[in-house]
């Protein structure tokens, strides 16, 4: 018990003291990088909840990520500045969107589910870029909202993101070990049997889908705070693919899969970008080698079990 | 009579768990041989090893004078070993007719090979349903199709794995009648089933498996006279 507790407290402690140390040593750049990693860790973990634990391979998860970001950009442009309005608005919007999309998509299975989630994400993408007053294909500036209690400096955003990530991961950890989480995993394991012993499968899947969409929206919201910009790229299908890469790379259905995958992929990209303009070649080769030789992802290499 | 199939000291495993131990058996040209034993004793694994689907870890499999244990399944099939598999495994997206003609060949160089017409004569029901897809057939029709499909390759050795499993009693009789017919035509057959009395009447040679080992081999006559054998290895 104490040993496993240390396993969480040590990394958390390191993250807590990192910004002042980075500031003192002139490495502020890395504070930003870690903020970005934490945001993607949240997004990837939300995808892992439905993909890994629920067996729902959504290829349109970027939709919620992007809508979260665009809500910030559009609301601040329209003169709404209070975070206490913007945050709930973004989360409710993403939850509603996930509910609508999920309630249609969850009638299909397998590859068809993958493709119909992609279709909805593409529709949202094209709708968003069609609004020229909101930047069209160029994207839209997103000002940091007003929290009232504190100024959202880069360091404050770092700590805010850390707090949100820790809270979200804790909630997800509770969820996957709860009654609901157990049923969700049972449905992934054997859907027809879960139905035959009396579970309303569709309802469980839909609730999980909405939770995941809302969490992805939360990540997108933070992303807009981080870059102060909402880009159509956040909504593009490549972004959905990127999130999926993180989950598969980190470990599907492993609790730390989303976090590890996001950290690994972003760090590798960062390093390779420093070396060569053909950095994607390196990323591709690494991904390929991992699929061929480490089929259970990074979390699998450590031999941990998620559930 | 010449030996068509000889299996010698066969050992087969799935991963780290060994299923077959030093299994040996011979089937002569024109004979009907059986594999008997309770569920999970290694009968289907023996068949899969002969077919090359689960390659043997060690041992010899000699078919028509040539070693085949290291060959891929399609080459073993091309030499004339064809199976009517457990669970029928009809191709659901091919029509009845396509299931039959897709693999047609004369692998035993018979002067009077099985053709579409002859298979339809044997199972008129299949002709009625020839344009239906495989997945639109009832269980019994699927079983007939699986047998017809195997016959269309004109195999030198026909293997039937639980061909009567899950069939209604009347259909089961139909299958036994068909096997008797094939035997009379000189077809070499290896059959796995659990109706021992039927098999004694049909087959020449029997092998009983118990936990992946051969525990008894002999002809129908001897098996008939030793009901204690059945009790011990095949029933309660």
């Amino acid at each position, binding site marked *: 018990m104490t040993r496993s507790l240390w396993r969480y407290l040590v990394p958390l402690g390191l993250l807590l003291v990192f910004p002042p140390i980075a500031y003192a040593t002139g490495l502020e750049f890395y504070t930003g990088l870690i903020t970005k990693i934490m945001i993607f860790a949240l997004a990837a973990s939300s995808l892992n909840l439905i993909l890994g634990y629920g067996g729902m391979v959504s290829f349109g998860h970027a939709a919620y990520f992007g809508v979260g970001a665009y809500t910030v950009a559009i609301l601040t442009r329209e003169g709404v500045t209070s975070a206490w309005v913007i945050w709930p608005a973004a989360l409710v919007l993403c939850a509603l969107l996930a509910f609508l999309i999920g309630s249609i998509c969850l009638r*299909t299975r397998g590859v068809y589910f993958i493709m119909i989630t992609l279709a*909805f994400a593409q529709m949202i993408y094209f709708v968003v870029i069609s609004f020229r007053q909101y930047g069209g294909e160029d994207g839209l500036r997103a000002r940091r909202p007003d929290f009232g209690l504190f100024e959202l400096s880069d360091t404050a955003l770092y700590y805010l993101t850390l707090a949100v990530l820790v809270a979200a991961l804790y909630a997800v950890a509770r969820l996957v070990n709860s009654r609901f989480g157990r049923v969700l995993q049972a449905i992934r394991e054997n859907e027809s049997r879960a139905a035959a012993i009396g579970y309303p499968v569709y309802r469980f899947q839909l609730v999980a889908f909405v939770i995941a969409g809302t969490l992805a929206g939360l990540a997108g919201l933070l992303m807009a705070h981080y870059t102060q910009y909402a880009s159509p790229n956040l909504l593009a299908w490549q972004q959905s693919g990127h999130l999926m890469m993180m989950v598969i790379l980190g470990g599907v259905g492993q609790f730390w899969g989303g976090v590890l995958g996001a950290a690994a992929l972003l760090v590798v990209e960062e390093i390779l970008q420093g070396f060569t303009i053909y950095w994607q070649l390196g990323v591709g*080769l690494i991904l390929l080698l991992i*699929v061929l030789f480490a089929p259970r992802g990074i979390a699998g290499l450590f031999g941990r079990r998620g559930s | 009579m010449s030996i068509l199939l000889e299996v010698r000291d066969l050992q087969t495993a799935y991963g780290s768990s060994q299923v077959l131990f030093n299994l040996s058996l011979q089937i002569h040209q024109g004979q009907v041989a059986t594999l008997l034993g309770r569920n999970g004793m290694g009968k289907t694994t023996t068949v899969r090893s002969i077919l090359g*689907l689960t390659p043997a870890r060690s041992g010899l499999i000699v078919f028509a004078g040539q070693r085949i244990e290291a060959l891929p*399944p*399609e080459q073993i*099939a091309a030499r004339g070993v064809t199976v009517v598999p457990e669970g029928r495994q009809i191709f659901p997206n091919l029509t009845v007719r*396509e299931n039959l003609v*897709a693999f047609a060949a004369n692998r035993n160089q018979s002067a009077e090979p099985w053709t579409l017409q002859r298979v339809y004569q044997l199972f008129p029901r299949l002709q009625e349903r020839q344009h239906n897809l495989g997945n639109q057939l009832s269980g019994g029709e699927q079983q007939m199709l699986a047998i017809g499909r195997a016959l269309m390759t004109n195999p030198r050795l026909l293997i039937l794995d639980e061909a009567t499993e899950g069939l209604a009693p009347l259909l089961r009789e139909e299958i036994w009648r068909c096997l008797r017919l094939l035997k009379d035509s000189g077809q070499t057959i290896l059959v796995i089933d659990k109706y021992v009395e039927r098999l004694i009447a049909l087959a020449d040679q029997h092998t009983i498996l118990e936990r992946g080992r051969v525990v008894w081999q002999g002809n129908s006559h001897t098996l008939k006279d030793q009901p204690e054998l059945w009790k011990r290895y095949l029933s309660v």
Partner: protein
Amino acid sequence: MPPTLFLEQILNGVQFGLMLFLLAAGLTLVFGIMDMINLAHGSLYMIGAYLTATFVGLTGVFWLGVLLAVVGTALIGMLLELTILRQLYKRDHLSQVLATFALILIINEVVRIIWGPQPLLLSAPEGLSGPIEILPGLNYSAFRLTIIVVGLIVAVALLLLVNYTRAGMWLRAGASNREMAQAMGVPIKPLFTLLFGVGAALCAIAGAFLGPILAVQVGMGESILILAFVVIVIGGIGSIKGALVGALLVGIVDTAGRAFLPMLLSQVASPEVASNLGPALASILIYLLMAVVLFLKPQGLFPART
């Protein structure tokens, strides 16, 4: 709206649809038969277009360039199958998505290293660059008409191959039960390698003929890959007939939508709204089509397996 314009747009839709079919045919066979999601299929299309541009440049003869590119792409496709893709058949869909996504990144960068970041120039052969009058008052691009003819010939050949030849039956048998097909004597490994070669060749044909119309550039494979996936999902995975119907549907709906929606919209809404919303709605149309088809028929129009 003049009827000739309408007819011309429909022809454009058919032309685009047939090229989509060439892409979707390989994709749906690989998907349906090997149960393999190959995102790198679009990369073969890109390779086909680049090779065509290169060979046409070298030889100066369009058709010879296309022929060489088709052969070259088929060889590259088979090489990919033999070295990497073959390892993935037994893996789950997620691993296949990850590995073939990695291949996209690799191939894109390799193409960029070889040919540079600028788009390549590939133009229609001279004899076909002008319009011809196909109906009184209707002039249509000779090159686009050629595409339609080539597309139809290849589509018919493919349908015959899959439905009426023994190799076609073997492919379909392998699609539903690979092990049983092997046990019946189907040489499955060479068959799959060959299938990849054919799929790559079809991609190259599409790349060669769409190249002069769209642009030959890095990334051209991805946008069209999504369309090809939409096509095979609408048609039903594994079904060649479905791929053809789906491709024509998507081609016509997409082309006609882009041409006519802004026009239609401007009659009911203000010009500003129409110019804003028109292209967006047109882009959405095929996805809407797919969502509706899947909602009504969750397995697509012509499900290959049930």
